């Protein structure tokens, strides 16, 4: 069955007693339930179900400091505690496997290579919130991941980890594997829920928040694949252990997807607080810049996060440091580009993407991204008029903070950061009618 050739640091992870997500991802047998169990799989699930109360599970995850790995970094246990205790309605858990933020390709590896770890994490979260039917929403393009998850779920049923009266505890849990239709916006949790209900994938106005009124208007928790896959390790090793990893406010480990102009692109699991420079340059990680060229910039957390210039990359990869350093951790997708890259050309790509993916619900995003695309294409093409750069800035300002969901902000934050950091290069396009650096990447 299909298996991405992506590079991981599984060998390093196996030597560490702190990292766990990638421990077995280079073992082709790990997808089978026997191997997963042999490696200690479903032990946490059994422990939770037979020895712990739901509230204890929530407290454990709260105390561990585990935060969402899907982009916003919201504390997982705290989110779970928002599910109303007294609601007579069913509760739902949705694992967000829409993975579409440009640069991000980590959840896919977990689903392809360690699908049972995802199921185990989902099961524990379900128990914690009192859910008996859990969903995983997988982006439609990942057909092979859906197949793999289907197969793993079937095995989990056969081995008594899912289904009725699990481990004789009286707890029932079913799993549904759902695939999407190719829309980035469906990764946004309320659009995801609409999509799961068979509607167009458009964001909902909050409040109500999903934890109170989500899927079918019932209390629902949406968590990222990696967040959930981290949960069994919290249970196995304890909240204190997890809290001891990473930094004070960003505990645990995280997978970073490294892409672009580096010698060794790949997915690397490291403790939060890992130095960005080391990830890019160290022989065991990125290995430095392609062709030993000069670094021009880094997008540290996926295409929606503000850019960094080389003098800003002496920074650690944790939620707080990145905000302090002018950007965001986001989904942990580190995109690197070297000196031969035109900054407006990058923005042109990204703006096309956000315009294409805008769900159309609110005017500033729908109209604004369309205007931006037109203007930016014109500028990049050397046809920009004096005042165009200012116009781009103005439109960005009209979108920022004025939209129903964060996609609008996601579209403009990268633009605004480049207007600040590479203003001269934007202006050059207007003054000289061409790019300052000609971008022409040959594939060989």
């Amino acid at each position, binding site marked *: 069955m299909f298996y991405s*050739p992506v590079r991981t640091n599984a060998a390093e992870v196996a030597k560490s007693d702190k990292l766990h997500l990638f421990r077995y991802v280079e073992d082709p047998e790990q997808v089978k339930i026997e191997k997963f169990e042999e490696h200690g799989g479903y032990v946490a699930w059994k422990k939770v179900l037979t020895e712990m109360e739901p509230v204890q599970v929530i407290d454990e995850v709260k105390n561990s400091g585990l935060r969402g790995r899907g982009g916003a970094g919201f504390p997982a246990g705290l989110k779970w505690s928002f599910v109303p205790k007294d609601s007579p309605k069913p509760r739902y858990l949705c694992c967000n496997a829409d993975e579409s933020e440009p640069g991000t390709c980590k959840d896919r590896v977990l689903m392809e290579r360690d699908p049972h770890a995802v199921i185990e994490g989902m099961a524990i979260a379900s128990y914690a919130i009192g859910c008996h039917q859990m969903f995983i929403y997988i982006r439609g393009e990942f057909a092979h991941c859906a197949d793999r998850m289907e197969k793993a779920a079937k095995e989990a049923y056969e081995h008594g980890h899912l289904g009725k009266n699990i481990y004789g505890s009286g707890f029932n849990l079913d799993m*549904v594997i759902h*695939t999407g239709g*190719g*829309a980035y916006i469906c990764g946004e949790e309320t659009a995801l829920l609409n*999509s799961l209900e068979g*509607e167009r994938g458009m964001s909902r106005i909050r409040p109500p928040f999903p934890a109170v009124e989500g899927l*079918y208007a019932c209390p629902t928790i949406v968590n990222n694949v990696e967040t959930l896959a981290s949960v069994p390790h919290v249970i196995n090793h304890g909240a204190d252990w997890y809290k001891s990893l990473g930094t004070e406010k960003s505990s645990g480990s995280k997978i970073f997807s490294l892409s672009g*102009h580096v010698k060794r692109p790949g997915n690397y699991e490291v403790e939060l607080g890992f130095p960005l420079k080391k990830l890019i340059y160290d022989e065991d990680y990125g290995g430095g810049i392609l062709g030993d060229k000069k670094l021009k910039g880094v997008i540290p957390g996926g295409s929606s996060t503000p850019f960094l210039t080389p003098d800003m990359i002496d920074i650690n990869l944790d939620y707080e440091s990145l905000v302090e350093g002018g950007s965001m951790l986001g989904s942990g997708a580190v995109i690197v580009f070297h000196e031969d890259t035109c900054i407006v050309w990058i923005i042109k*790509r990204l703006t096309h993407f956000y315009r294409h993916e805008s769900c159309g619900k609110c005017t500033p995003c729908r109209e604004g991204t369309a205007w931006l695309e037109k203007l930016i294409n014109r500028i990049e093409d050397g046809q920009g008029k004096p005042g165009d750069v200012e116009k781009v800035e103005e439109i960005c300002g009209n979108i920022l903070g004025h939209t129903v969901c964060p996609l609008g902000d996601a579209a403009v934050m990268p633009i605004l950061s480049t207007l600040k950091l590479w203003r001269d290069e934007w202006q050059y396009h207007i003054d000289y009618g061409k790019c300052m650096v000609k971008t022409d990447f040959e594939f060989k």
Partner: protein
Amino acid sequence: MILTKESVNKIREKLQQYPKPKSAILPALTVAYRQAGYVDEGIYKEISKIINVTTVEIAEAATFYTLFAKEPRGKYLIQVCHNISCALLGADSLIGYLQEKLNIKIGETTEDKMFTLVTVECLGSCSTAPVMQINQDYYERLTKEKVDQVLEDLRSKA
């Protein structure tokens, strides 16, 4: 009837998993699309009968999602990622190469109806860029040599 018995059964099976039938729209479209290579009014009607949701509701959802082609395409749909990580590693040049090799432009289908070429947004395969997806399969870390090989294999398989 376009949908085969097997597809109908798969859709029925999916339907049973959801608390509400509308949720089966996307899974049903997925099954239909995987079988037929496209979806249209006729297929919406067939799905409507199986899951008991109106054709209008199905069409409304289907038209939102770009994954489901609304008309038949070549036997092999080549989807090349043109988003940032792939673009940094030569996606444009890859697209040019494919256009030249297949002698078609983006959005077109070869005369023998074998290949349709389209560009798509990030495929979630950025650390193995440049990337393309042909029907359900991913092809990663592409080189000219690999592209030649893949096309040749597909041609000889047909």
